[in-house]
């Protein structure tokens, strides 16, 4: 099951070798699991603490960043023809592939450790997965933390790969009923750095009107482009992990960080459940509308 040499700490192995099951599921989710024939084996988790700085974010150089071979880059030229040390001669959006890659490393390490714990228990899948990532006590350390409940499907052989899902309980039961099998959780982060052009900076500073006669309010193209692009990148990362399967129950969130005036990072994070259809959809009868008496 686990071809890679185990990197689980001793304490984890000791815990997992004990008899009784543990489950992070609520009682109703636990009951639903039993109903589905999923036997809870144990709460499994995985961590990865990463050194985290915004290094490589060297900020603004003398000339625009050449860009990595694969990432998104967009350049903005100053239309004013002014040469002055106070005037931005150029602006640029570029994808910070190294941030995206480190994030993926952290998430994947924690994820594979969690699967390794599940493998130790002889689990077939992990349900009710919870993920979090955040700064740890020290500056410059980010911890990725994943946990879930490992389960075994009663009267079924072990699958080639341990499957996983954020779902549990009735929601998971309905996924099966609707004709889907959970494959894995998928998650990605896109990071776009914005070094403002002169126009962007004036507009973001609220002084854009100085540079154009009539436009009192205008769309800030460079920011809009970075925002829409980072969302597109996050979605393309996830799509690349689907291999023809579907993404269910996704959530997409955005985060903007300002390092200095005219220097921003725009992040988009997308995560959800990769699921696969195993039978044709059998539409259920229209649900009964109810009104609660209270």
């Amino acid at each position, binding site marked *: 099951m686990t071809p890679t040499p185990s990197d689980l700490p001793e*304490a984890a192995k000791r815990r997992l070798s*004990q008899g*009784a099951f543990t489950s*992070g599921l609520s009682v109703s989710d636990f009951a639903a699991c039993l109903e589905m024939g999923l036997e809870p084996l144990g709460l499994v988790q995985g*961590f990865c603490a*990463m050194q985290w700085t915004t*290094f490589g974010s060297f900020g603004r150089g003398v000339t625009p960043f050449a860009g990595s071979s694969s990432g998104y880059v967009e350049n903005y030229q100053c239309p004013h023809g002014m040469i002055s040390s106070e005037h931005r001669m150029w602006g640029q959006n570029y994808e910070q592939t190294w941030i995206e890659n*480190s994030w993926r490393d952290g998430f994947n390490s924690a994820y594979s450790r969690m699967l390794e714990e599940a493998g130790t228990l002889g689990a077939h899948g992990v349900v009710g997965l919870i993920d979090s990532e955040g700064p740890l*006590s020290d500056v410059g350390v980010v911890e990725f933390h994943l946990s879930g409940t490992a389960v075994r499907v009663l009267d079924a052989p072990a699958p080639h790969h341990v499957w996983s899902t954020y779902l549990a309980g009735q929601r998971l039961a309905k996924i099966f009923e609707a004709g889907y099998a959970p494959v894995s959780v998928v998650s990605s982060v896109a990071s776009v750095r914005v070094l403002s052009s002169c126009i962007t900076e004036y507009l973001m500073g609220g002084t854009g009107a100085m540079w154009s006669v009539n436009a009192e309010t205008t769309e800030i193209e460079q920011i809009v482009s970075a925002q829409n692009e980072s969302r597109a990148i996050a979605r393309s990362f996830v799509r690349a992990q689907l291999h023809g399967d579907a993404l269910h129950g996704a959530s997409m969130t955005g985060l903007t960080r300002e390092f200095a005036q005219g220097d921003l990072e725009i992040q988009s994070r997308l995560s959800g459940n990769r699921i696969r259809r195993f039978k044709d959809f059998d539409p259920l009868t229209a649900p009964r509308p109810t009104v609660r008496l209270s």
Partner: protein
Amino acid sequence: MSNPTNDLPQATEHRLEELEKGLFTSDLSVNEFLLIKEVGFHPVGFVMGSSIYHTGIQTRKWSQSQELTKLTEAMYNARELAMNRMEEEAAELGADGVVGVRLDVNYYEWGKDAAEFIAVGTAVKAEDGVSRLNQLGKPFTSDLSGQDFWTLRQTGYMPQGLVMGTCVYHIAHRGIGQTLGTTGQNVELPNFTQALYEARELAMTRMQDEAARLGASGIVGVRLEEKSHQWGSHTIEFLALGTAVTKTSEEMTLAKPTTIISLDN
């Protein structure tokens, strides 16, 4: 009724005596009350236990990640005392168990390094007169709500006890040299990963040990809480909590849910 070995205060004895005359108090909602009746239990009284504990000080090494065993012990013993007293109250009432247990920690201004650990819940008794005490001959405890208790009974499981494990851990500070970064890259810090792993796994193992003593077949609703209390950000208590359960019947009586669309907001 009076158990010579118990250490409950006088006022408690008095309150409990009143409850034995047939009045019950509980912090259950009406819904929970009805559901508990539905599975053959009757609430007998609101019970609590408390312990004010002085947590000692332990020196920590600045640059070393380690468990602070003295603090771990203090945090564990204090909760255990509060829980035991709550169980004693329940036993006084002839209860079979306690549901809806909440564990809290309060800090008061007057007590430096002292904290009050409180356990409260509603004691319940089986209506068929058959004892449901756990393997240790004590009332079972659980943090399940009335709804959860009902649902769990439908699956053929019975709670045995609220089990917990704790581990107070000091996480090393990083030296200036280290912070500034050796490689200029976002890379894993294996020592940190290991330390955090170790701390949480210890807490969970201890919780499982408790469940094993109760002869439980599993633990449901496991929560892992992380708190720094008043120790500063580098010292963290990892507390694992859950309800240990055993299977008492093969029967699953959970009805197939009906799909509805609620028009309530």
